[in-house]
């Protein structure tokens, strides 16, 4: 193959990839922004206005509760794997295999499991509790992986200096290692947020799709992404779907921007 041909193909592929991204974003924005009006942003959902506000609030509820549970578990797992476990430990191998497998399971299987276990077996019904617990398991591997990477990026001389000054292991982790690793861990938590915000398949049969604001932990609701699915599946509220898409993409843009910013900060801090 001639060099020119190779170069041409490489440039063409990159152009295709990035134009498709820009095109998708522009298409959703161009069609959605004009419909982001007071109707769709009104406080209560009615069949007339198809308001996204209740779903927006539900999204925040599910997101907040999931992170509240998943973050400590994920970060503690990272502590164990990086700071405590000895090399070649059998338990570590099993835990790694478990998290790798969890990371590979598709959303719909999480959804089925959540339905079988939380909704039916534990009797939660379609509820915030079932949706949140399913999401917790789903995002755990993301948080664990980024915690591990952030902790491993911290220079060992910092730990040794802390031990040398007489600090215990726990103190070293919380006062010396954690502050340096924090941006990396946060960037993982934020990535997990992105996954929860965009999730549909895992929540459809756990959280349910009720259009109202959930009245408690054991009541059903729908997140923005689910709201968009229901609207686009019905096919009669195309404009409202576009508008919901705009809000979802804005969410994702903010989340990704934050995550990129924080991982750059980690790279600077560990140098």
């Amino acid at each position, binding site marked *: 193959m001639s060099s020119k041909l190779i170069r041409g193909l490489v440039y063409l592929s990159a152009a295709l990839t990035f134009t498709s991204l820009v095109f998708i974003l522009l298409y959703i924005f161009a*069609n959605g922004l004009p419909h982001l009006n007071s109707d769709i942003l009104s406080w209560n959902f009615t069949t007339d206005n198809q308001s996204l506000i209740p779903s927006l609030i539900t999204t925040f509820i599910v997101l907040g509760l999931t992170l509240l549970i998943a973050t400590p578990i994920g970060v503690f797992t990272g502590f164990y794997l990086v700071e405590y476990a000895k090399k070649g430990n059998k338990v570590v191998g099993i835990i790694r295999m478990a998290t790798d497998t969890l990371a*590979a399971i598709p959303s719909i299987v999480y959804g089925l499991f959540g339905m079988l276990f939380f909704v039916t*077996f534990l009797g939660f019904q379609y509820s915030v509790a079932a949706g949140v617990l399913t999401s917790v398991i789903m995002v755990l591997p993301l948080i664990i992986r980024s915690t591990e990477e952030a902790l491993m990026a911290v220079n060992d001389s910092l730990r040794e200096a802390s031990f040398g000054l007489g600090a215990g292991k726990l103190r070293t982790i919380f006062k010396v290692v954690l502050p340096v690793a924090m941006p990396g861990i946060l960037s993982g938590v934020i990535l997990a947020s992105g996954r929860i915000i*965009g999730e*549909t398949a895992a929540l459809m049969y756990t959280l349910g799709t009720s259009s109202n604001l959930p009245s408690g932990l054991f009541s059903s609701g729908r997140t923005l992404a689910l709201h968009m699915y229901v609207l686009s599946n019905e096919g009669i509220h195309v404009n409202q779907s576009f508008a919901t898409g705009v809000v979802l993409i804005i969410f994702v*843009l903010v989340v990704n921007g934050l995550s*990129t910013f924080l991982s750059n900060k980690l790279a600077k801090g560990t140098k």
Partner: protein
Amino acid sequence: MKAKKVEGFMQGVFLISALLSVLSIILIIIFMFAGGVPFMLEYGIADFLFGDRWSPSNTPASFGILPMILGSIFVTLGAIVIGVPIGILTAVFMAEFCPPKLHRWLKPAVNLMAAIPSIVYGFFALQLIVPIMRNFSGGTGMNMLTAMILLGVMILPTVIGLSESSLRSVPRSYYTGSMALGATHERTVMKVIMPAAKSGIISSIILGVGRAIGETMAVVLIAGNQPIIPQSITSGVRTLTTNIVLEMAYAAGEHREALIATGVVLFVFILIINGVFMFIKRKESRA
């Protein structure tokens, strides 16, 4: 003394947290298999896997998922044919051709592509690709080709991310050595760097396969969802994932169990794909 107790206690807390992942995967396996396998045995595994009729509301009902298994495989293959070459070449661009200033923008762009929710991709395809396909091939425009194109785009960030990092981890001496022998930049990248990054690139394809086969909400909107073996690339298609999502809302009894069993088949597919992925990764870290 007190400090030591706290140390020991917290180490226990960390270990228990870590074991929660193991507990989760065990629970998932138990509940999925217990929910689906009894039905498979009762209905007959061969009839279930290789039956080509899915008509849950007939009497007697038939639950053959061959159309969905083939549907998933066809759609995934199509996505690979479309997405993998573009993805790998884009990774080559990012690792070897792109100025660092541009890379600072493109890297987050790839991450953004990975983060756009499935439902947004699906809705985009429903509004744009489906009408184009309708003009082009007739019918509803919701068909296998539409799904392949969309999934081809959706696996791009997966393929690009892992391929790029494996291209970048090839020792720089390979590059300088080849250039010193008089090879052009392009030839060096294609003949030296890419072969050296082979196992990482293959891993990226396997991850892409996993993503495509597990995708649900984007496909359900645009694939037509007919539970019959597709006769051509422009026939409608139903995949394993969409079979579950479409009918779970109203399924009961045997029908519901058949859908869970569909999930089990999908789960086994993913476990196999993931097993291959881990095997390659392990081989790579040993080499």
